[in-house]
């Protein structure tokens, strides 16, 4: 059975330092929620508050409708996977996995059958008599997951479980975690600083910064409609291009004039970004253009809201499936994502096409989306 989680005006301070600054959040049963944010934003602390490994300073944590502020971790019906795996080094894999059932006095035969089921599911059934020290990183990760899964709790908490794995294994385990969630349907709260993990795994993402949740929404919304500059800049790799500039109107059309641009380029806001309110002449704004919305002229089927401009290419970075072109507007580095066959040479002028229909507009002062 999966339980929902509710956080009500949750705060946590360590001495004079406020780490969690009033968080309200409702997580539905069976959801996969990813807490994402830069180091020190409070995401691990928030997870520890849900787990009961830290005490709340004020506010409430409810799991399955029950206030668990004063309930120790063992009685919260949760399981947790730690970044360092935190396997018990002196116990075998078998004893690691069954420890939680031993302490709860689960009958031996029930322990055995649960162990057998999940060891098979995680493909660690041949490792049961080894010690954690004799396992590879990926195997340790699986054992740590097995230890959490085997108790079949209502909520799973993951604290950056993949960040100690190498890149290839990380992608593999990511897929497995998603499969496991689809299969078991338990509520998951997952902490990571990796925005790709967040995008791929989550049913909803909470982007955190400095003890606050900036935006809590499904991955597509987070990516396509970030509420502010922070969310826009954090999600996406390479990050969204941010061009500081000023608004002006001409012939009923809104334009962004990049600040200090000698290139005399002005971006027409003819897509949804130009429909907002308060787009007064002279307003200082940030124009956000994702790298994949800037491509080589003529490379994609023509559509509405296309805008062409030329700029000298500074750096060419092939990644395989795409090539990143770094160029400058107004003295600021911007990145375009072009196809590998769009050959460009550093120093030469390149003809770019940008899909202004996907452009984002933010207030330069508050950073909020317009």
């Amino acid at each position, binding site marked *: 059975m999966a339980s929902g989680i509710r956080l009500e005006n949750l705060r946590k301070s360590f001495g004079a330092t406020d780490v969690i600054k009033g968080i309200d959040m409702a997580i539905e049963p069976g959801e996969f929620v990813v807490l994402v944010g830069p180091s020190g934003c409070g995401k691990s602390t928030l997870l520890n508050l849900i787990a009961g490994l830290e005490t709340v300073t004020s506010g409430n944590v409810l799991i399955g409708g029950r206030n668990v502020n004063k309930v120790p*971790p063992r009685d919260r019906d949760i399981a947790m996977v730690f970044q360092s795996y935190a396997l018990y080094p002196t116990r075998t894999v078998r004893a690691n996995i069954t*420890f939680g059932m031993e302490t709860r006095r689960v009958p031996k035969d029930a322990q055995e059958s649960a162990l057998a089921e999940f060891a098979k599911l995680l493909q660690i059934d041949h490792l049961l008599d080894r010690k954690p020290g004799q396992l590879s990183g990926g195997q340790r990760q699986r054992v740590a997951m097995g230890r959490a899964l085997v108790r079949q709790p209502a909520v799973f908490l993951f604290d950056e479980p993949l960040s100690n794995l190498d890149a290839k294994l990380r992608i593999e385990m990511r897929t497995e975690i998603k499969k496991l969630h689809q299969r078991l349907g338990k509520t998951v709260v997952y902490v990571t600083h990796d925005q790709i993990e967040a995008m791929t795994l989550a049913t909803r993402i909470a982007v955190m910064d400095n003890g606050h949740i900036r935006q809590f929404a499904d991955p597509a919304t987070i990516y396509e409609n970030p509420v502010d500059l922070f969310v826009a800049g954090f999600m996406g790799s390479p990050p969204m291009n941010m061009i500081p500039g000023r608004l002006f109107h001409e012939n009923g059309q809104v334009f962004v004039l990049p600040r200090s641009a000698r290139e005399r380029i002005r971006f027409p806001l003819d897509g949804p970004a130009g429909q907002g309110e308060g787009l007064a002449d002279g307003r200082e704004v940030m124009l956000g253009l994702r790298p994949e919305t800037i491509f080589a002229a003529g490379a994609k089927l023509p559509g509405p809201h296309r805008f062409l401009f030329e700029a000298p290419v500074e750096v060419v970075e092939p990644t395989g499936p795409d090539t990143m072109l770094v160029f400058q507007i107004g003295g600021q580095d911007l990145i375009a994502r072009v196809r590998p066959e769009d050959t460009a040479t550093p120093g030469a002028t390149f003809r770019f096409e940008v899909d202004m229909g996907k452009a984002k507009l933010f207030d330069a002062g508050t950073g909020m989306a317009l």
Partner: protein
Amino acid sequence: MRARRTDGIVRPSGPGAIALRVLLFTLLGLFCLYYLFPLFVMVSTSLKSLAEIREGSFLALPRAISFEAWAKAWGSACVGVRCDGLQPYFVNSVMMAVPAVLLSTLLGALNGYALTKWRFRGADIIFALMLFGAFIPFQVVLLPMARTLGELGLAGTVPGLILVHTVYGLAFTTLFFRNFFIGVSDGIVNAAKVDGAGFFGIFFRIVLPMSLPAIVVTVIWQFTQIWNDFLFGVSFTVGDSNPVTVALNNVVNTSTGVKEYNVDMAAAIIAGLPTLLVYVVAGAYFVRGLSAGAIKG
């Protein structure tokens, strides 16, 4: 395996380097002799007869090896008025040292665990105060401790000495374990909490089995301290409850009769053997445990 460890060392060559190496090994050899010589004299003297000791040089090897002095030291040498050798006092020392070592090690481990893994307000102050205990000279506490033992009815008994050694060992054992546990990931303790274990469950089933290197270091340290202690032994025990160190003193410093150097030497070796044995058995762990503490602490 062991021989190959030196394979990868790049050494300078040439006459200068060789001369330096010869000098180095000569010096090392001399130091070895300097340290081993007293042991040699003790062992060889203990195997000689009294007549041979009087006639020959103390550097010479025994002409005929005799274990009489050893037998006498163990079973029939006179300690004060009692002539049963060191044996009963050796037993006293074992009865005193083993419980005192185990108790102080266990309590030190518990302290270190609580101070690092169940942080509470004032933990650092408590640790600093306990550390202070490691620097108190033992002479200072003799009188208050004697009074305490008297109040408890433990004056002049082996259990009284166990209590004294346990209390004064705690500062060191707590320090050792605290420094070891500070390097143990909090994640393991958190995982065990989520898994449903409590304070003692985590201690006995997860943390204590992990701390074998720290246990070995602490046991060796405590055993050496407690077994070799003379001051507390001579202050807090009387006659039949004396530990072996006090008895050895009484054998050697007797002012009556002929000075039996062979018996004295054998008695001194007997009194020192257990600590040597502990080093040999657990020595490999000792070095490993010390360095582990140093890196992690």
